[in-house]
Protein backbone atom coordinates (compact mmCIF):
# COMPACT_ATOMS: atom_id res chain seq x y z
CA UNK A 1 0.00 0.00 0.00
CA UNK A 2 2.76 2.44 0.97
CA UNK A 3 6.49 2.20 0.49
CA UNK A 4 7.98 -0.67 2.39
CA UNK A 5 10.72 1.26 4.14
CA UNK A 6 9.34 0.37 7.51
CA UNK A 7 7.44 -2.77 8.41
CA UNK A 8 3.66 -2.66 8.67
CA UNK A 9 2.39 -1.57 12.07
CA UNK A 10 0.10 -4.56 12.28
CA UNK A 11 0.23 -7.55 9.99
CA UNK A 12 -2.07 -10.54 10.31
CA UNK A 13 -1.64 -13.61 8.14
CA UNK A 14 -4.06 -16.53 7.78
CA UNK A 15 -5.69 -15.98 11.14
CA UNK A 16 -8.31 -18.54 12.13
CA UNK A 17 -10.39 -18.36 15.27
CA UNK A 18 -13.21 -20.52 16.58
CA UNK A 19 -15.80 -19.99 19.23
CA UNK A 20 -17.83 -22.91 20.47
CA UNK A 21 -20.51 -21.74 18.04
CA UNK A 22 -18.31 -22.18 15.00
CA UNK A 23 -15.55 -20.56 13.03
CA UNK A 24 -15.52 -16.81 13.36
CA UNK A 25 -12.30 -15.80 11.57
CA UNK A 26 -11.34 -17.82 8.56
CA UNK A 27 -7.89 -17.35 7.03
CA UNK A 28 -8.02 -13.66 7.65
CA UNK A 29 -5.28 -11.38 6.32
CA UNK A 30 -4.84 -7.75 7.28
CA UNK A 31 -2.05 -5.21 6.85
CA UNK A 32 -2.17 -1.90 8.66
CA UNK A 33 0.32 0.89 8.07
CA UNK A 34 1.29 3.45 10.63
CA UNK A 35 -0.74 6.35 9.21
CA UNK A 36 -3.76 4.33 8.13
CA UNK A 37 -7.15 5.52 9.20
CA UNK A 38 -9.34 2.52 8.94
CA UNK A 39 -13.01 2.00 9.63
CA UNK A 40 -13.88 -1.62 10.31
CA UNK A 41 -17.51 -2.42 9.71
CA UNK A 42 -19.57 -5.54 9.99
CA UNK A 43 -22.75 -6.88 11.53
CA UNK A 44 -23.08 -7.81 15.21
CA UNK A 45 -21.22 -10.91 16.19
CA UNK A 46 -19.15 -11.08 13.00
CA UNK A 47 -15.92 -11.02 14.97
CA UNK A 48 -14.82 -7.40 14.90
CA UNK A 49 -14.08 -7.26 18.60
CA UNK A 50 -12.54 -10.73 18.47
CA UNK A 51 -10.21 -9.54 15.74
CA UNK A 52 -9.13 -6.53 17.77
CA UNK A 53 -8.53 -8.69 20.82
CA UNK A 54 -6.36 -10.99 18.75
CA UNK A 55 -4.28 -8.01 17.63
CA UNK A 56 -3.79 -7.01 21.27
CA UNK A 57 -2.94 -10.54 22.32
CA UNK A 58 -5.97 -10.89 24.58
CA UNK A 59 -7.14 -13.86 22.54
CA UNK A 60 -4.93 -16.43 20.87
CA UNK A 61 -5.86 -17.51 17.35
CA UNK A 62 -6.10 -21.17 16.45
CA UNK A 63 -3.64 -20.62 13.63
CA UNK A 64 -1.96 -17.81 11.74
CA UNK A 65 0.74 -15.28 12.52
CA UNK A 66 0.65 -11.82 14.02
CA UNK A 67 3.39 -9.27 13.47
CA UNK A 68 3.44 -5.92 15.18
CA UNK A 69 6.07 -3.37 14.12
CA UNK A 70 7.65 -6.15 12.13
CA UNK A 71 8.10 -8.36 15.17
CA UNK A 72 6.48 -11.76 15.37
CA UNK A 73 4.13 -11.98 18.36
CA UNK A 74 4.11 -15.36 20.00
CA UNK A 75 3.85 -15.12 23.75
CA UNK A 76 2.19 -12.92 26.33
CA UNK A 77 5.62 -11.39 26.87
CA UNK A 78 5.88 -10.30 23.23
CA UNK A 79 2.48 -8.67 23.42
CA UNK A 80 3.02 -6.96 26.74
CA UNK A 81 6.09 -5.22 25.35
CA UNK A 82 4.13 -3.63 22.47
CA UNK A 83 0.79 -2.96 24.16
CA UNK A 84 1.91 0.48 25.23
CA UNK A 85 2.48 1.42 21.60
CA UNK A 86 -0.94 0.35 20.41
CA UNK A 87 -3.59 2.19 22.35
CA UNK A 88 -6.76 0.19 22.72
CA UNK A 89 -9.98 1.77 23.89
CA UNK A 90 -12.65 -0.59 25.14
CA UNK A 91 -16.30 -0.48 24.21
CA UNK A 92 -17.48 0.05 27.79
CA UNK A 93 -15.76 2.87 29.64
CA UNK A 94 -16.59 1.21 32.93
CA UNK A 95 -14.19 -1.56 31.96
CA UNK A 96 -11.48 0.90 31.13
CA UNK A 97 -11.72 3.23 34.11
CA UNK A 98 -11.03 1.42 37.34
CA UNK A 99 -9.19 3.93 39.52
CA UNK A 100 -11.01 6.21 41.94
CA UNK A 101 -9.86 9.48 40.41
CA UNK A 102 -9.17 10.60 36.86
CA UNK A 103 -5.56 11.48 37.60
CA UNK A 104 -4.79 7.99 38.93
CA UNK A 105 -6.51 6.33 36.01
CA UNK A 106 -4.75 8.37 33.37
CA UNK A 107 -1.43 7.91 35.19
CA UNK A 108 -1.86 4.13 35.34
CA UNK A 109 -0.49 3.48 31.85
CA UNK A 110 2.49 5.87 32.08
CA UNK A 111 3.44 4.41 35.50
CA UNK A 112 3.31 0.91 34.04
CA UNK A 113 5.59 2.05 31.26
CA UNK A 114 8.15 3.12 33.81
CA UNK A 115 7.53 6.83 34.29
CA UNK A 116 8.19 8.25 37.74
CA UNK A 117 5.17 9.62 39.65
CA UNK A 118 6.34 13.16 38.85
CA UNK A 119 6.69 12.44 35.13
CA UNK A 120 3.34 10.66 35.14
CA UNK A 121 1.68 13.72 36.67
CA UNK A 122 3.09 15.88 33.89
CA UNK A 123 1.90 13.41 31.28
CA UNK A 124 -1.59 13.41 32.78
CA UNK A 125 -1.71 17.18 32.76
CA UNK A 126 -0.55 17.38 29.17
CA UNK A 127 -2.96 14.69 27.98
CA UNK A 128 -5.96 16.19 29.73
CA UNK A 129 -5.12 19.60 28.33
CA UNK A 130 -4.92 18.23 24.81
CA UNK A 131 -8.45 16.87 25.20
CA UNK A 132 -9.83 20.01 26.83
CA UNK A 133 -10.29 18.12 30.07
CA UNK A 134 -8.34 20.47 32.28
CA UNK A 135 -9.36 20.36 35.91
CA UNK A 136 -10.64 16.80 35.69
CA UNK A 137 -7.72 15.40 37.71
CA UNK A 138 -9.48 14.94 41.02
CA UNK A 139 -12.90 14.03 39.61
CA UNK A 140 -14.23 10.65 40.71
CA UNK A 141 -14.39 8.37 37.68
CA UNK A 142 -17.67 6.63 38.47
CA UNK A 143 -19.41 9.95 38.88
CA UNK A 144 -18.52 11.20 35.40
CA UNK A 145 -21.22 11.36 32.72
CA UNK A 146 -21.16 8.85 29.88
CA UNK A 147 -19.54 11.32 27.49
CA UNK A 148 -16.94 12.42 30.01
CA UNK A 149 -16.13 8.79 30.76
CA UNK A 150 -15.48 8.14 27.08
CA UNK A 151 -13.16 11.14 26.76
CA UNK A 152 -11.29 10.21 29.93
CA UNK A 153 -10.97 6.65 28.58
CA UNK A 154 -9.39 8.11 25.49
CA UNK A 155 -7.07 10.14 27.71
CA UNK A 156 -5.96 7.00 29.56
CA UNK A 157 -4.98 5.51 26.20
CA UNK A 158 -3.37 8.63 24.76
CA UNK A 159 -1.33 9.16 27.93
CA UNK A 160 0.79 6.18 26.95
CA UNK A 161 1.76 8.04 23.79
CA UNK A 162 0.86 5.17 21.49
CA UNK A 163 1.83 5.00 17.84
CA UNK A 164 -1.48 3.57 16.72
CA UNK A 165 -4.99 3.49 18.15
CA UNK A 166 -7.70 0.89 18.06
CA UNK A 167 -11.11 2.12 19.17
CA UNK A 168 -13.88 -0.39 19.77
CA UNK A 169 -17.31 1.19 19.16
CA UNK A 170 -16.24 4.62 20.41
CA UNK A 171 -19.60 6.30 19.78
CA UNK A 172 -21.90 3.83 21.54
CA UNK A 173 -24.11 5.75 23.93
CA UNK A 174 -22.60 9.14 23.14
CA UNK A 175 -24.65 12.25 22.52
CA UNK A 176 -24.15 14.34 19.42
CA UNK A 177 -21.97 16.90 21.12
CA UNK A 178 -19.47 14.39 22.47
CA UNK A 179 -19.47 12.54 19.15
CA UNK A 180 -18.57 15.82 17.44
CA UNK A 181 -15.75 16.33 19.88
CA UNK A 182 -14.47 12.84 19.23
CA UNK A 183 -14.53 13.49 15.48
CA UNK A 184 -12.60 16.68 16.03
CA UNK A 185 -10.01 15.05 18.28
CA UNK A 186 -9.44 12.15 15.91
CA UNK A 187 -9.24 14.12 12.69
CA UNK A 188 -6.84 16.61 14.23
CA UNK A 189 -4.63 13.93 15.71
CA UNK A 190 -1.57 12.80 13.84
CA UNK A 191 -2.00 9.20 14.84
CA UNK A 192 -3.13 6.38 12.66
CA UNK A 193 -6.08 4.43 13.95
CA UNK A 194 -8.62 1.74 13.34
CA UNK A 195 -12.19 2.33 14.42
CA UNK A 196 -14.57 -0.54 14.93
CA UNK A 197 -18.07 0.79 14.63
CA UNK A 198 -21.61 0.54 13.39
CA UNK A 199 -21.88 4.26 13.12
CA UNK A 200 -21.31 4.72 9.38
CA UNK A 201 -21.58 8.46 9.51
CA UNK A 202 -18.92 8.67 12.21
CA UNK A 203 -16.63 6.25 10.42
CA UNK A 204 -16.98 8.12 7.14
CA UNK A 205 -16.01 11.36 8.78
CA UNK A 206 -12.99 10.05 10.63
CA UNK A 207 -11.41 7.47 8.35
CA UNK A 208 -10.26 7.24 4.76
CA UNK A 209 -10.31 3.51 4.28
CA UNK A 210 -13.24 1.25 4.94
CA UNK A 211 -12.98 -2.44 5.57
CA UNK A 212 -15.72 -4.93 6.09
CA UNK A 213 -15.52 -8.12 8.07
CA UNK A 214 -17.70 -10.75 6.47
CA UNK A 215 -17.70 -14.53 6.74
CA UNK A 216 -14.49 -14.38 8.74
CA UNK A 217 -12.54 -12.40 6.16
CA UNK A 218 -11.69 -8.79 5.44
CA UNK A 219 -13.09 -7.09 2.35
CA UNK A 220 -12.55 -3.62 1.03
CA UNK A 221 -15.76 -1.71 1.41
CA UNK A 222 -15.55 0.92 -1.28
CA UNK A 223 -18.88 2.53 -1.28
CA UNK A 224 -20.88 2.89 1.88
CA UNK A 225 -23.29 5.63 1.09
Amino acid sequence: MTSRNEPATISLKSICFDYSGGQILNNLNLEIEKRDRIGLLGPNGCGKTTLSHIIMGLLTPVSGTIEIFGKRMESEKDFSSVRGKIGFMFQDSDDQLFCPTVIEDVAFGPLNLGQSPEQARQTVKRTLRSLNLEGFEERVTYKLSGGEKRLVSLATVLAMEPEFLILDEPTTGLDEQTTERLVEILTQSELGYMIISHDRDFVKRTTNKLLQLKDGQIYQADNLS
Partner: protein
Amino acid sequence: MEMEELAVGKSWVHGIDPRLKIVIMLVFSILVALNNNIHVVTASLLLSILLIVTARLDVRFMLRRLGMVNGFILFLWFFMPFTASGENIYSLGPIDIKREGVHQALLITIKSNAIVMMGITMLGTSSVFSLIHAMSHLYVPDKIVHLFFFCFGYIHVINDEHQRLKNAMRMRGFRPRTNMHTYKSYSYLVGMLLIRSFDRSRRILQAMKCRGFRNKFYILHHYEMKKFDYAVAFSSVAFALFILVLN
Protein backbone atom coordinates in the same frame (compact mmCIF):
# COMPACT_ATOMS: atom_id res chain seq x y z
CA MET B 1 -25.71 4.84 46.41
CA GLU B 2 -23.84 7.11 48.78
CA MET B 3 -21.29 5.52 51.05
CA GLU B 4 -18.85 8.19 52.00
CA GLU B 5 -21.22 10.73 53.54
CA LEU B 6 -18.84 11.68 56.33
CA ALA B 7 -15.67 11.76 54.28
CA VAL B 8 -16.35 15.24 53.01
CA GLY B 9 -15.83 17.80 55.69
CA LYS B 10 -13.14 19.84 57.27
CA SER B 11 -12.13 19.22 60.85
CA TRP B 12 -8.96 18.19 62.59
CA VAL B 13 -10.10 14.56 62.49
CA HIS B 14 -10.53 14.69 58.70
CA GLY B 15 -6.96 15.90 58.39
CA ILE B 16 -5.28 13.03 60.24
CA ASP B 17 -3.06 10.81 58.12
CA PRO B 18 -5.20 7.80 57.08
CA ARG B 19 -2.43 5.40 58.07
CA LEU B 20 -2.49 6.78 61.58
CA LYS B 21 -6.28 6.56 61.68
CA ILE B 22 -6.20 2.86 60.90
CA VAL B 23 -3.61 2.19 63.60
CA ILE B 24 -5.48 4.23 66.20
CA MET B 25 -8.75 2.47 65.37
CA LEU B 26 -7.14 -0.94 65.63
CA VAL B 27 -5.37 -0.30 68.94
CA PHE B 28 -8.40 1.42 70.42
CA SER B 29 -10.71 -1.46 69.50
CA ILE B 30 -8.43 -4.08 70.96
CA LEU B 31 -7.80 -2.17 74.19
CA VAL B 32 -11.48 -1.42 74.73
CA ALA B 33 -12.70 -4.87 73.75
CA LEU B 34 -10.34 -6.58 76.18
CA ASN B 35 -10.97 -4.23 79.04
CA ASN B 36 -13.47 -5.13 81.75
CA ASN B 37 -13.22 -2.13 83.98
CA ILE B 38 -16.45 -0.21 83.65
CA HIS B 39 -14.81 3.12 84.48
CA VAL B 40 -12.12 2.76 81.83
CA VAL B 41 -14.66 1.63 79.26
CA THR B 42 -16.86 4.60 80.08
CA ALA B 43 -13.87 6.92 79.74
CA SER B 44 -13.28 5.45 76.26
CA LEU B 45 -16.90 6.07 75.35
CA LEU B 46 -16.54 9.68 76.48
CA LEU B 47 -13.42 10.03 74.36
CA SER B 48 -15.31 8.72 71.34
CA ILE B 49 -18.13 11.18 71.94
CA LEU B 50 -15.62 14.00 72.33
CA LEU B 51 -14.09 13.09 68.96
CA ILE B 52 -17.47 12.99 67.25
CA VAL B 53 -18.36 16.40 68.58
CA THR B 54 -15.06 17.98 67.59
CA ALA B 55 -15.10 16.30 64.19
CA ARG B 56 -18.45 18.01 63.65
CA LEU B 57 -20.13 14.96 62.24
CA ASP B 58 -23.80 14.89 61.36
CA VAL B 59 -25.41 13.82 64.64
CA ARG B 60 -28.56 12.46 63.05
CA PHE B 61 -26.56 10.28 60.70
CA MET B 62 -24.51 9.09 63.64
CA LEU B 63 -27.61 8.19 65.66
CA ARG B 64 -29.03 6.23 62.72
CA ARG B 65 -25.87 4.19 62.49
CA LEU B 66 -25.75 3.63 66.23
CA GLY B 67 -29.41 2.66 66.14
CA MET B 68 -28.51 -0.27 63.91
CA VAL B 69 -25.82 -1.49 66.28
CA ASN B 70 -27.94 -1.04 69.37
CA GLY B 71 -30.75 -2.93 67.72
CA PHE B 72 -28.65 -6.03 68.07
CA ILE B 73 -27.50 -5.15 71.55
CA LEU B 74 -31.09 -4.73 72.66
CA PHE B 75 -31.50 -8.50 72.32
CA LEU B 76 -28.74 -9.00 74.89
CA TRP B 77 -30.79 -7.04 77.37
CA PHE B 78 -33.71 -9.39 76.79
CA PHE B 79 -31.92 -12.35 78.28
CA MET B 80 -28.51 -11.53 79.77
CA PRO B 81 -29.79 -9.92 82.99
CA PHE B 82 -31.99 -12.94 83.67
CA THR B 83 -29.74 -15.83 82.80
CA ALA B 84 -26.49 -14.98 84.61
CA SER B 85 -25.75 -16.62 87.93
CA GLY B 86 -25.02 -14.68 91.09
CA GLU B 87 -26.63 -12.10 93.26
CA ASN B 88 -30.25 -11.03 92.76
CA ILE B 89 -30.86 -7.32 92.59
CA TYR B 90 -34.53 -7.38 91.81
CA SER B 91 -37.28 -9.93 91.46
CA LEU B 92 -39.98 -9.41 88.88
CA GLY B 93 -42.52 -11.98 89.87
CA PRO B 94 -40.98 -15.34 88.98
CA ILE B 95 -38.06 -13.70 87.09
CA ASP B 96 -34.86 -12.71 88.86
CA ILE B 97 -32.63 -9.94 87.66
CA LYS B 98 -28.98 -10.69 88.39
CA ARG B 99 -26.32 -8.08 89.14
CA GLU B 100 -23.65 -9.90 87.12
CA GLY B 101 -25.93 -10.09 84.06
CA VAL B 102 -26.75 -6.40 84.13
CA HIS B 103 -23.09 -5.59 84.58
CA GLN B 104 -22.04 -7.67 81.59
CA ALA B 105 -24.78 -6.32 79.34
CA LEU B 106 -23.86 -2.79 80.31
CA LEU B 107 -20.17 -3.45 79.57
CA ILE B 108 -20.97 -4.85 76.16
CA THR B 109 -23.26 -1.94 75.35
CA ILE B 110 -20.70 0.68 76.30
CA LYS B 111 -17.83 -1.13 74.58
CA SER B 112 -19.71 -1.63 71.32
CA ASN B 113 -20.83 1.95 71.19
CA ALA B 114 -17.37 3.29 71.99
CA ILE B 115 -15.75 1.15 69.30
CA VAL B 116 -18.38 1.83 66.65
CA MET B 117 -18.26 5.55 67.33
CA MET B 118 -14.49 5.54 67.15
CA GLY B 119 -14.70 3.55 63.92
CA ILE B 120 -17.08 6.03 62.36
CA THR B 121 -15.05 9.05 63.40
CA MET B 122 -11.69 7.59 62.43
CA LEU B 123 -12.51 5.57 59.32
CA GLY B 124 -15.68 7.32 58.17
CA THR B 125 -13.92 10.65 57.84
CA SER B 126 -11.54 9.36 55.16
CA SER B 127 -12.52 8.29 51.70
CA VAL B 128 -12.52 4.52 51.32
CA PHE B 129 -9.84 4.69 48.66
CA SER B 130 -7.47 6.68 50.83
CA LEU B 131 -7.91 4.03 53.54
CA ILE B 132 -7.23 1.24 51.07
CA HIS B 133 -4.24 3.19 49.91
CA ALA B 134 -3.11 3.59 53.50
CA MET B 135 -3.41 -0.17 54.00
CA SER B 136 -0.88 -0.76 51.26
CA HIS B 137 1.48 1.66 53.01
CA LEU B 138 0.97 -0.30 56.23
CA TYR B 139 2.24 -3.46 54.54
CA VAL B 140 -1.11 -5.21 54.36
CA PRO B 141 -0.62 -7.98 51.76
CA ASP B 142 -1.16 -6.77 48.18
CA LYS B 143 -3.84 -9.32 47.47
CA ILE B 144 -6.06 -8.08 50.28
CA VAL B 145 -5.50 -4.46 49.30
CA HIS B 146 -6.41 -5.17 45.68
CA LEU B 147 -9.46 -7.12 46.76
CA PHE B 148 -10.73 -4.13 48.74
CA PHE B 149 -9.78 -1.77 45.95
CA PHE B 150 -11.75 -3.55 43.24
CA CYS B 151 -14.67 -4.44 45.50
CA PHE B 152 -15.21 -0.84 46.38
CA GLY B 153 -14.33 0.46 42.95
CA TYR B 154 -16.91 -1.65 41.20
CA ILE B 155 -19.63 -1.84 43.79
CA HIS B 156 -21.31 1.11 42.07
CA VAL B 157 -21.19 -0.51 38.68
CA ILE B 158 -22.60 -3.75 40.05
CA ASN B 159 -25.26 -1.85 41.97
CA ASP B 160 -26.27 -0.05 38.76
CA GLU B 161 -26.48 -3.37 37.01
CA HIS B 162 -28.59 -4.75 39.84
CA GLN B 163 -30.96 -1.77 39.65
CA ARG B 164 -31.28 -2.13 35.89
CA LEU B 165 -32.12 -5.81 36.11
CA LYS B 166 -34.56 -5.18 38.94
CA ASN B 167 -36.28 -2.40 37.03
CA ALA B 168 -36.49 -4.57 33.94
CA MET B 169 -38.19 -7.22 36.05
CA ARG B 170 -40.59 -4.70 37.51
CA MET B 171 -41.43 -3.30 34.07
CA ARG B 172 -42.66 -6.73 33.16
CA GLY B 173 -44.97 -6.87 36.12
CA PHE B 174 -42.79 -8.73 38.61
CA ARG B 175 -43.94 -8.41 42.23
CA PRO B 176 -42.04 -10.24 44.92
CA ARG B 177 -44.29 -12.67 46.79
CA THR B 178 -43.72 -15.72 48.89
CA ASN B 179 -43.77 -18.29 46.15
CA MET B 180 -41.54 -20.42 43.96
CA HIS B 181 -41.69 -17.96 41.07
CA THR B 182 -40.26 -15.18 43.23
CA TYR B 183 -37.45 -17.34 44.62
CA LYS B 184 -36.57 -18.55 41.18
CA SER B 185 -36.56 -15.06 39.71
CA TYR B 186 -34.37 -13.76 42.51
CA SER B 187 -31.93 -16.58 42.09
CA TYR B 188 -31.74 -15.78 38.37
CA LEU B 189 -31.10 -12.16 39.28
CA VAL B 190 -28.26 -13.07 41.64
CA GLY B 191 -26.86 -15.60 39.19
CA MET B 192 -26.94 -13.09 36.38
CA LEU B 193 -25.18 -10.50 38.53
CA LEU B 194 -22.45 -13.01 39.40
CA ILE B 195 -21.89 -13.96 35.78
CA ARG B 196 -21.89 -10.37 34.63
CA SER B 197 -19.46 -9.39 37.36
CA PHE B 198 -17.21 -12.25 36.37
CA ASP B 199 -17.31 -11.16 32.73
CA ARG B 200 -16.65 -7.61 33.72
CA SER B 201 -13.68 -8.55 35.86
CA ARG B 202 -12.22 -10.31 32.84
CA ARG B 203 -12.70 -7.26 30.64
CA ILE B 204 -11.19 -4.98 33.26
CA LEU B 205 -8.11 -7.15 33.45
CA GLN B 206 -7.87 -7.08 29.66
CA ALA B 207 -8.16 -3.30 29.63
CA MET B 208 -5.47 -3.10 32.28
CA LYS B 209 -3.20 -5.39 30.31
CA CYS B 210 -3.68 -3.18 27.28
CA ARG B 211 -2.33 -0.34 29.33
CA GLY B 212 0.83 -2.18 30.22
CA PHE B 213 -0.24 -3.74 33.54
CA ARG B 214 2.17 -6.45 34.62
CA ASN B 215 0.72 -7.51 37.96
CA LYS B 216 2.25 -4.64 39.82
CA PHE B 217 0.53 -1.50 41.00
CA TYR B 218 2.46 1.73 41.16
CA ILE B 219 1.34 4.33 43.62
CA LEU B 220 0.94 7.89 42.46
CA HIS B 221 0.37 9.62 45.79
CA HIS B 222 2.51 9.16 48.84
CA TYR B 223 1.61 10.06 52.38
CA GLU B 224 3.66 12.18 54.66
CA MET B 225 3.29 12.41 58.44
CA LYS B 226 2.98 16.03 59.48
CA LYS B 227 3.76 17.55 62.88
CA PHE B 228 0.06 17.48 63.60
CA ASP B 229 -0.03 13.73 62.92
CA TYR B 230 2.81 13.16 65.35
CA ALA B 231 0.89 15.12 67.97
CA VAL B 232 -2.18 12.95 67.40
CA ALA B 233 -0.05 9.81 67.55
CA PHE B 234 1.53 10.96 70.81
CA SER B 235 -1.81 11.67 72.49
CA SER B 236 -3.14 8.31 71.33
CA VAL B 237 -0.20 6.51 72.89
CA ALA B 238 -0.77 8.48 76.10
CA PHE B 239 -4.41 7.43 76.17
CA ALA B 240 -3.51 3.81 75.46
CA LEU B 241 -1.05 3.82 78.36
CA PHE B 242 -3.68 5.39 80.58
CA ILE B 243 -6.07 2.54 79.81
CA LEU B 244 -3.40 -0.09 80.35
CA VAL B 245 -2.28 1.38 83.66
CA LEU B 246 -5.82 1.66 85.01
CA ASN B 247 -6.44 -1.90 84.02
